[in-house]
């Protein structure tokens, strides 16, 4: 069954902390995305990738790094976490519309930076 799995589902860290959010998709999709969602905003794109080793800059990339190690795995890195990065993070994957398949989204990771 097609799926996008995020881990952890919840994370608390302190200002200046180092955090890695993980995303794995089992859909054989080429594209993967990381978003943050805050009250009053839609999901805002941080980074995305069209394949292993590739990285595309999104709309709100500051303070975030990302790495696509394999087709299945896309990681979001916060090396010096700040309270402004407290948010709900979503990962997604997409196959570029092949087979008219919709992009798939994970369940979200809630991050709190104290």
């Amino acid at each position: 069954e097609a799926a996008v799995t995020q881990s952890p589902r919840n994370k608390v860290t302190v200002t200046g902390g180092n955090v890695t959010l993980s995303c794995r998709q089992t859909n054989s999709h080429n594209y993967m995305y990381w978003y943050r969602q805050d009250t009053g905003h839609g999901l805002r794109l941080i980074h995305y990738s069209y394949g292993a080793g590739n990285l595309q800059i999104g709309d709100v990339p500051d303070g975030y790094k990302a790495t696509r190690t394999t087709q299945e795995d896309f990681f979001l890195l916060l090396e010096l976490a700040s309270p402004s990065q407290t948010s709900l993070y979503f990962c997604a994957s997409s196959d570029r519309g092949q087979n008219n398949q919709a992009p798939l989204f994970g369940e979200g990771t809630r991050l709190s930076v104290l």
Partner: protein
Amino acid sequence: GDQVEQSPSALSLHEGTGSALRCNFTTTMRAVQWFRKNSRGSLINLFYLASGTKENGRLKSAFDSKERYSTLHIRDAQLEDSGTYFCAAVGYGNEKITFGAGTKLTIKP
């Protein structure tokens, strides 16, 4: 960059009535997806369209790539329809998925 303008930002309806949400796009988009955010914060996929219209129960969506808009119609609204609805559009070529800011829908008895 690509922008998605979603309206209205908030909407209040009485049970049994209906209305429409709309997303306008600043550039031509390849496809659109509509979501509802559930009480746990997860995104529930409602529709994915590359063109035309789709209907599912009391919901109907339309997407016109050339005219750069999509709509989500709700009819016979029920209390459980309350929530925040998002549209997301997929850009041509770059496959960038851009979200609207959301519509907070409140259904009143």
